[in-house]
């Protein structure tokens, strides 16, 4: 389903993209690069500027400065050409409460000048099927649960063939089962070659399905790349399993290991440039009984917390 061949090879590309609301800088000179075919996890705590960035990408909000392009087409001039190929969910679902789910989709389809009315019914059914809402299609939207609303919004994004899906917190308000379903839906869409940009303030909800990550903090994009690249950017961690954690901790500190933490039967710390072999021999030389020794990259979770500073607290 994807189209390739744009010179940039990027489904989304921004340079110095900035948005100010009065004094506040909501998005601060971000350079986003979402390769075609990627599932790009756009992470950051609440208020870090994800939705504002997405609004700029979709032409809803005019940037204060910087440039953006979608599917190789610069915005705003290319919006008319790019947006029909982009399905989106922005800041939660929004529909007419007194219309049925089906009528709401029909309305969006009617508004699309490129949509063929002869195929509308079939496309609407297919989109409803895809999100498992066919049975509730005739119910009024106001009677939908939050999970059903979220699914209807995803169905709306799938009404037409797409090259790019921009999903802003698609798992918000879903139970674990619903979250899993959305994840697997995103996975199957990506398998069809659709590029997916999915934002979340919860790393755990998207990390399994992402090929790329972009991490926002207070309006800035603090890390970006493939999952491996972003992970590799994080500090290494050494763990020592021992019956003498205090003695081991002293040795590690002496060697210059930072952030040394002692727990029952274990010590861990950040070795910096220090070679792991040197740590082991120093421990042995000091007579510390080593039961186990591991060197690992920081867990994505820890990395996310360290990148976004305040963890999951609201920023800005």
């Amino acid at each position, binding site marked *: 389903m994807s189209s390739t061949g744009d010179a940039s090879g990027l489904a989304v590309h921004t340079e110095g993209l900035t948005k100010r609301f009065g004094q506040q800088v909501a998005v601060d000179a971000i350079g986003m690069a979402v390769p075609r075919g990627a599932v790009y996890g756009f992470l950051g705590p609440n208020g870090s500027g994800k939705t504002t960035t997405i609004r700029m990408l979709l032409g809803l909000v005019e940037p204060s400065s910087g440039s953006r392009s979608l599917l190789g087409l610069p915005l705003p001039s290319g919006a*008319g050409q790019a947006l029909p190929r982009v399905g989106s969910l922005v800041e939660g679902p929004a529909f*007419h409460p007194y219309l049925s789910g089906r009528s709401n989709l029909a309305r969006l389809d009617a*508004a699309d000048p490129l949509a063929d009315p002869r195929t509308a019914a079939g496309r609407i059914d297919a989109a409803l099927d895809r999100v498992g809402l066919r049975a509730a299609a005739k119910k009024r939207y106001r009677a939908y649960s939050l999970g059903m609303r979220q699914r209807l919004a995803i169905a709306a994004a799938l009404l037409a063939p797409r090259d790019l899906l921009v999903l802003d917190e698609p798992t918000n308000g879903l139970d674990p089962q619903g979250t899993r379903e959305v994840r697997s839906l995103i996975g199957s869409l990506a398998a069809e070659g659709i590029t997916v940009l999915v934002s979340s303030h919860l790393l755990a909800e998207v990390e399994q399905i992402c090929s790329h990550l972009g991490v926002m903090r207070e309006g800035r994009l603090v890390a970006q790349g493939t999952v491996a690249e972003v992970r590799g950017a994080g500090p290494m961690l050494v763990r020592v399993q021992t019956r003498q954690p205090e003695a081991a901790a002293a040795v590690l500190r002496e060697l210059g290991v930072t952030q040394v933490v002692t727990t029952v039967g274990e010590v861990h710390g950040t070795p910096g440039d220090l070679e792991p072999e040197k740590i082991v021999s120093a421990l042995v030389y000091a007579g510390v009984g080593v039961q186990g020794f591991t060197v690992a990259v920081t867990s994505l979770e820890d990395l996310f917390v360290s990148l976004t500073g305040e963890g999951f607290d609201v920023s800005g």
Partner: protein
Amino acid sequence: MSAVEVGSGTAVDAGVGAGSAIRPRRRWSTRFLRSELRLIAGRRRNQMGLLVLAAVPIIMAIAVKVSTPGPGEGPNFLSSITSNGLFVPLAALGVEIAMFLPLAMSMLSGDAVAGEANLGTLRYLLTVPVSRTRLLAVKYVSLCIGALWGVTAVALPGAVIGIALFGTGDLTTLSGSQISFGVAVWRVVLVMLYLAAGLAGLAAVGLFISTLTEQPIAASIALLIFTILSWILDSVPQLSWLHPWLIVHEWMSFGDLLRDPIAWANVLRGLFVDGVYALVFWLAAWARFSSKDITS
């Protein structure tokens, strides 16, 4: 203002990529407009509004019927008016154009943009994508059709009950002469179109206000206040220099369409002012909306 939806931009250039998502542009379509009209007509509150508009002529007709002396008994003047049922829709329109019909327009225009912003559906329409110009054009055309529905909701039940209760005799014009029922029907249609044009001018003001807020109720109230203020200013003799430019000023001139022959001067002046309002405020709405950040 052309009552036609026009998609923005040129035909999609199929040269970019080879995605199946490239779809041929269908240049002419009234699908969005029809969907918009269904949305307006399907809304329970609007249906109730139409019932209220329709109730007024019915109440008036019954009241006149009950209080009118039988033929030959009363004064000649009254019986000459009530010999044709079409006086009912005309009188009802005269009553309702002051406040009820503008109130109806306030409700519809409040929903138009502010209502969609309030629900959040505006952002999804714009990312379909619907160009902002097209959105405003469709919204405005649907308001104009809403204005026609409004006057029809008054005139049609009025005509039906008027004819049922008072018959289809000759209509006495305001000039005192008599015109046949057939001619009178056309005069009523002219009055309906004239008043709908006035409401369409008002709707442009409402559309503009609707782009300023995300609260549909606030937009509705603002247009209602605008209407009431216009009527108040129109009644202050010291402001006579302003009167020709108040949208409501010539609305009551619809009576000139019931003269024999029709006195066109004030009616044409009224249509001109309606047109100026429609143009100026639609452009103001466009200027405001086309550059607005949609953060709802």
